[in-house]
């Protein structure tokens, strides 16, 4: 302290808030002298600076602000770029300084981008960033540096979210009107995060304005949505609530009827300057119902109906408080996901007035209850974070029931029930960030302990490390390492992350999966544009696969018996990112070159094989052009290598188990002049494909261009926005999957000599997304 005064230094504190909503801005970049720091979880900073220093503050989605250091405590208000959109030219925007493995996304950029059917989707926005890929075209699932869709942790105000898909994965459940900010960690993780191998998506929900009421109404081809936010008690108690519902059951088809709905509510009450309570509720539901039409004649009628439902529920209560320099956030929560499918078939005999019915039902569910404590403490050049979490998972892998009734009497009533079980996990972490001249070091450790009934589990330590070196102004070399463990897994036939995939937790037979991540990056910010080059290397261990040919209807067999375990994998690559942040034209170019593989003892003869989504090259060019105050254009061009698939090298006949006995069905023995006692099993063949290797071929190159135009009219306090767009505007045939049916025509009369001849056969490439227009209207006031 004495030396500080000797050199004219003093402690300078401050808080950075949104000018409009008065909400704190977390992680804003504060540059002073030759140093910089970030605002903490309540938007505050505390540094030692020279009296003559000026502070340059920048924040993602906000302009840059210069503040003269004059007060021991400064309340700094920042103006959002979204408020300045009418000024035609977005000045701005430096964003938080790049941190290795972390990418921030502007909500305003999500709203200005082009999406399938015009539905703003944060996850699809992420798919345009380096190292982050889509899985199957059109779906929201993300593949981060070779990880699977279940290796991404979705956090909504610190609470895990399990079901993130609407419309069987075509759009995500995240509604941009409730999101304040989104960060994705895709490789190097601070110690505070744990639980998934490949990424953490940290959604911070908007508390709503503290000063004014605000509403937004939108309607598009796909859905209608409403958002309302504002103060219940000015500057003290806010509410932000949204609801969105699809319109397809009204606009396109009433049967089968499909709809989704999601709603959220966040309310924050500031007890005083040091204590704040927040409640967050979030529900989503998808429902697909096909009602049976009664068909038949004068003697009998039949009908058949079926339905699919999946739901996500999140509820949390958090208490944030400051005790001196110590900031604490305590969150208790309940979160879960449920999937159900059922069918009902009936037969009615009119004359006898008798009836028969068959009903099937299947349900799977995961429910979490937990508590999290997160604290930060700052002193001198140290920024220490620590905390813990305790989560109890209730896992219900599946229950399948079949009931057959005749004339109201139950003939068969079978229930195949996978035992539900609990799994608890404890996490404790400690993280410290400190600066020394041009170096910044973040060291952390996360202690993870799965708790499984009647089974002694080991302790897992996850070291985290990142080092930054500043060469010149805004020019950084960074490197990092992190180890991650994953206690929860999704049983999937196809790695797509479909709603029907089953969440399960580690058990006495299934150990947590783990990954090790290494990365090094070089970045420079030139003010109006920036570029980043980052290289990563990653290994996976203890992976599991559901295995092919395994039904999610678990048929009375333990799920643990149906999966392939002890899988290994690896991914490596280089990512390039160039971003233009200012001017009428803004946007970015991303390019990723990577290679990913998997290895399981019982798949591909135990040999390594390429990951299904191992697309070697991936380029995205995203542009937003603000032509005038009213008119803006956006485009997105994507190009990539094709997904991998398994191409058969031939076909061969099998023995058909339906033709085993000479008296059984199949082919009559007489037909082939076999002895009457002969076994005809050799004569009734199916056709089997021969695969020498898994994922041995690639789809053709993928590319498409999406465009959109926005036109905005502002009248008094009302703002109207019309949007017209098109997905895949040049209608590229992009292969979604390959059809290689084994139904070879055995009845063909010709017998051909095929030795040594060229194969002129064609596998069919199936594409599902031709040019798709979109139209939407938004009203805000």
């Amino acid at each position: 302290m004495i030396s500080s005064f000797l050199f004219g230094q003093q402690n300078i504190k401050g808080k950075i808030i949104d000018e409009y909503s008065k909400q704190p801005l977390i992680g804003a970049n504060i540059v002073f002298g030759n140093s910089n720091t970030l605002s903490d979880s309540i938007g505050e900073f505390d540094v030692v600076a020279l009296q003559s220093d000026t502070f340059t503050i920048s924040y993602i989605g906000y302009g840059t602000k210069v503040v003269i250091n004059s007060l021991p405590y400064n309340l700094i208000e920042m103006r959002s770029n979204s408020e300045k959109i009418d000024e035609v030219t977005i000045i701005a925007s430096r964003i938080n300084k790049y941190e290795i493995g972390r990418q921030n996304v502007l909500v305003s950029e999500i709203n200005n981008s082009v999406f399938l059917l015009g539905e703003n989707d944060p996850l699809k926005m992420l798919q345009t960033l380096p190292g982050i890929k889509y899985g199957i075209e059109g779906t929201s699932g993300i593949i981060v540096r070779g990880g699977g869709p279940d290796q991404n942790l979705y956090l909504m105000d610190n609470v895990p979210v399990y079901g993130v898909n609407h419309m069987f994965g075509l759009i995500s459940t995240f509604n941009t009107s409730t999101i304040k900010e989104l960060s994705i960690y895709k490789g190097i993780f601070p110690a505070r995060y744990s639980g998934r191998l490949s990424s953490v998506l940290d959604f911070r929900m908007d508390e709503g304005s503290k000063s004014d009421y605000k509403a937004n109404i939108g309607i598009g081809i796909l859905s209608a949505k409403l958002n309302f936010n504002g103060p219940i008690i000015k500057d003290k108690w806010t509410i932000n609530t949204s609801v969105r519902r699809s319109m397809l059951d009204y606009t396109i088809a009433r049967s089968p009827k499909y709809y989704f709905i999601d709603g959220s509510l966040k309310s924050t009450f500031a007890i005083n300057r040091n204590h704040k309570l927040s409640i967050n509720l979030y529900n989503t539901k998808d429902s697909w119902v096909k009602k049976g039409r009664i068909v038949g004649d004068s003697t009998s009628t039949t009908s058949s109906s079926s339905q699919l439902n999946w739901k996500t529920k999140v509820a949390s209560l958090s208490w944030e408080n400051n005790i001196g320099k110590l900031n604490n956030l305590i969150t208790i929560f309940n979160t879960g996901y449920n999937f159900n499918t059922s069918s009902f078939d009936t037969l009615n005999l009119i004359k006898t007035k008798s009836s028969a019915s068959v009903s099937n039902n299947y349900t799977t569910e995961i429910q979490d209850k937990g508590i999290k404590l997160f604290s930060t403490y700052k002193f001198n050049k140290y920024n220490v974070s620590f905390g813990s979490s305790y989560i109890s998972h209730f896992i219900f892998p599946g229950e399948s029931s079949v009931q057959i009734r005749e004339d109201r009497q139950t003939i068969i009533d079978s229930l195949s029930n996978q035992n539900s079980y609990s799994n608890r996990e404890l996490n404790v972490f400690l993280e410290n960030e400190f600066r020394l001249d041009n170096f910044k070091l973040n060291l952390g450790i996360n202690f993870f302990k799965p708790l499984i009934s009647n089974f002694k589990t080991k302790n897992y330590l996850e070291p985290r490390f990142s080092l930054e070196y500043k060469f010149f102004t805004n020019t950084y070399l960074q490197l990092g390492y992190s180890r991650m463990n994953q206690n929860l897994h999704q049983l999937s036939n196809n790695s797509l992350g479909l709603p029907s995939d089953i969440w399960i937790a580690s058990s006495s037979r299934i150990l947590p999966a783990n990954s090790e991540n290494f990365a090094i990056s070089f970045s420079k910010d030139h003010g109006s544009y920036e570029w980043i080059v980052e290289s990563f290397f990653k290994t996976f261990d203890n992976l599991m696969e559901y295995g092919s040919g395994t039904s999610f209807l678990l048929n009375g067999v333990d799920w643990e018996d149906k999966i392939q375990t002890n899988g290994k994998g690896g991914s490596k690559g280089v990512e390039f990112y160039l971003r233009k942040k200012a001017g009428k034209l803004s946007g970015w170019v991303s390019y990723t070159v990577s290679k990913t593989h998997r290895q399981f003892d019982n798949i591909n003869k135990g040999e390594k094989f390429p990951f299904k989504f191992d697309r070697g090259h991936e380029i995205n060019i995203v542009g937003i052009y603000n032509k005038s105050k009213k008119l803006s254009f956006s485009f997105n061009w994507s190009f990539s290598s094709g997904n991998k698939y398994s191409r058969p090298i031939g076909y061969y006949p099998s023995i058909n188990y339906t033709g085993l006995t000479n008296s059984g069905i199949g082919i009559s023995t007489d037909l082939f002049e076999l002895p009457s006692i002969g076994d005809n099993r050799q004569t009734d063949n199916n056709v089997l494909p021969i695969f020498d290797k898994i994922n041995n071929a690639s789809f053709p190159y993928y590319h498409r261009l999406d465009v959109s135009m926005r036109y905005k009219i502002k009248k008094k306090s009302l703002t109207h926005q019309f949007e017209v767009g098109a997905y895949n505007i040049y209608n590229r045939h992009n292969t979604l999957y390959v059809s290689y049916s084994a139904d070879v025509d055995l009845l063909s009369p010709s017998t051909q000599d095929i030795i040594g001849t060229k194969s002129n056969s064609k596998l069919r490439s199936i594409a599902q997304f031709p040019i798709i227009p979109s139209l939407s209207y938004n009203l805000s006031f």
Partner: protein
Amino acid sequence: MKNFVFILSVSFLFYSCGKELDLNGNETFEPLAIMNCVMSVGEPIIVQFVQSKSPGDTGNFKIIEDAFIEINNSNIKYLDFILKKPKDDFNIGYYLCNDDLLESPKGETFTIKASNAKGSCSIVANTTVPGKPSIKNISLVDSKLFEYPGRKGTYNFNGIIEIEFETIEPNSFFQLEGNVVNDTYYNLFNVKKDSVYFSKCFLNFLKFEGETFFDAFEVKENTIRNNKLLVELSSIINYSKAIPDSINFEIRSITKNYFEYLQDLNKMEKSSQDPFGFPFIVRTNIENGYGIFAITNPYKINLKI
């Protein structure tokens, strides 16, 4: 607005229709040797020996003619297979072993060797004779046969086949099959109108792993205890010609590789329904080729309804 119209106009110049793509390239196809032979104790030996064919080839599998086939163990040698050609194109060729029946005690290991006339392709495989099922008693209990309401001349059949074993050895693999005699059942797989085949069940006694066919056939897992197995038949079957009077029932001991092969066929069938899933690779025990070489040991019985 002019800009937007321009962009749209230019974009439509790139318009292309969806199309079928040739994903095979111009690779030369090399056929592989395929051998299928599942022998049963007390039954003739039939071997299918053909070439694989290229993807999309709609022709028949080409028979490997003039092949040399030999099946032997330490005591017995089966030779002189006669090529039996199919009567029409529906069937696929096979070799029949001169009316010899397979006779061999439990535990004998057989080797099959097959090669084409030029000797340019040859395959080898081994399999071991499983023991005959040690059945103490098989009976049909709680059987019900009644006319279907409102459908004169058609009947429903329900019943339970109770199988009691003398002993069940570890790592025993079985397959169940049977047919209701005199039944005419219309299903896609049935081309013979004298009986219904109700089985696609194979099971390992240590833990039930098999899968049943249709909803006509159910193995109650909980009852595979105390050397007793209950097979519940609960089919709704139409009998339009004659009233069924009995069930032909078989329980076969099968080799482990045949058990796995049958399971794999099931899994492959399911995996083919998911275009995004892994293809399932059916295991083979044929060296230098594909197919299956296995032995079953049947126990047959006719049960009166």
